[in-house]
């Protein structure tokens, strides 16, 4: 075999190996979704609807996310365990009752328009047991919004003093252990569909406009609501 032929074969093989590696990486990235977590469906005798229990944390920690331990994140409760996922399955044409534990402190809304509770049953939510229809946007740590369904819920954070006192640095965070805000609200689902949801507080620390990192990665500050 000539030197030229060997070179051609070598270059071809190298290009093929690099190409396959890139393809595998892209395929892995494109198919890496958090596991979907189903809401708990209530019996009709209990009023029907479905329950969804979620929490937001200021730092997800190494146990849950070794690659990005300092990112903010949502977690969802499934069968008594906190699961690192932002893909939730809820029933169609139902009322979904959401209980949310907020462990993070305020970042503030970029657009104060989202300080009003919108699209929930009654246009309200409860904040630590008190019914409200709006919050101070500067106190929002995160928000839970499903734009296609018109649902926008601001999530006030714990105070800085509380955060300094007992900041939950390692998710999952248990409400009994750390200061938190408890927020409840309900929203109606319509027809079956695949709806995206996101946080509207620029909470991606250290990224452009606070909207990078966890704000642009499925499994942290955005995800899908699968209405089935």
């Amino acid at each position, binding site marked *: 075999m000539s030197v030229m032929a060997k070179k051609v074969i070598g270059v071809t093989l190298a290009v093929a190996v690099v190409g396959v590696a890139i393809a595998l990486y892209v395929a892995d990235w494109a198919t890496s979704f958090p596991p979907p977590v189903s809401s708990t469906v209530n019996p009709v005798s209990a009023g029907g609807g479905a329950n969804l229990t979620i929490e937001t944390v200021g730092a997800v920690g190494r146990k849950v996310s070794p690659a990005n331990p300092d990112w903010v994140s949502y977690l969802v409760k499934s069968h008594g365990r906190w699961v690192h996922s932002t893909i939730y399955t809820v029933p169609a044409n139902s009322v979904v009752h959401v209980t949310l534990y907020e462990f993070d402190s305020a970042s503030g809304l970029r657009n104060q328009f989202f300080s009003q509770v919108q699209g929930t049953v009654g246009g309200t939510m409860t904040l630590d047991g008190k019914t409200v229809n709006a919050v101070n946007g500067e106190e929002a740590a995160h928000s839970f919004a499903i*734009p296609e369904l018109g649902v926008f819920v601001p999530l006030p954070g714990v105070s800085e003093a509380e955060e300094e006192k007992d900041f939950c640095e390692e998710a999952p965070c248990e409400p009994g252990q750390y200061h938190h805000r408890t927020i409840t609200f309900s929203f109606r689902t319509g027809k079956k569909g695949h709806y995206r949801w996101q946080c509207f507080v620029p*909470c991606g620390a250290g990224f452009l406009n606070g*909207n990078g990192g966890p704000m642009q990665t499925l499994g942290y500050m*955005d995800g899908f609501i699968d209405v089935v």
Partner: protein
Amino acid sequence: MSSESSVAPGLAPEEPNHWRRFLSIWVIASVIGTPLIVLLVGPLLGPSTGSEEAGGQHTIMTVLAAVATPVFMLVVLFIAYSLVYFRQEKGAALEGPAIRGNARVQAVWIVVTSLIVLGLAVYGTYELEDHYGHGSGSGPNPLTVPSGPKLPVQVIAQQWLFTYRYPTYGGVETTHLELPVDQEVEFNVTSLDVIHSFWAYKLGVKADANPGANNIAFVKPTKEESFEVRCAELCGIWHGAMVNPGKVVSATAFNTWIHEQQARLAPATKALPSYSKTYIPEPTRRAE
């Protein structure tokens, strides 16, 4: 390509007049093809007739297609003609005669293409300014502004949703865009974070949304219909989902709707900063 008056050495004297023959074919094809393109393809070009601007854009697209058709025919027919008449015979291995310059062809080519390009530039510029930007973003100080009353609507882009603020209705902000029919609208487009682009295709409106800048676009909806607003600038993970519904309704329906929004969104309106052409949100602690 040769003609009878300039038969290249080596070619048979009975060679036909290719110039005349090709020009005849091209003229006939263009005369038949251009109206067909205008009639059959024209209706598919550009936005619908949802606004004066959209209708104007549709006309411009049709004119461009009509002008481009003969040019397209010229190129395609020239290739086809050459393949048929100047094909090298099988087994022959001779190169064609060298052609070194043709002042007449070059002059005609330069003059005709210049006239087409300059003509379209003049036509485009005239149309753009005669129709107040024709639905495009014209910056904070448009060269021409439509006379008469205008409904100002601020388009606020953020990752990843458009919201709309109506300064003449108490500065209420909404997630849906609703407009009255036959009313001149002045869009003031801005962004709270990265660059987005406000694109209401059916209305023929497209304007970049830049942070810290106001980009004005005018539109006059002429048909009651639903439309879609999309972001036309890649802006992050949910760029593809940055879609809003919009609606053009009667003046009465618009009044009813906007007053409902004012009442429903009073808490949000109260929290909003005073109306401004641009907003520079306070840097958040986390983003610093």
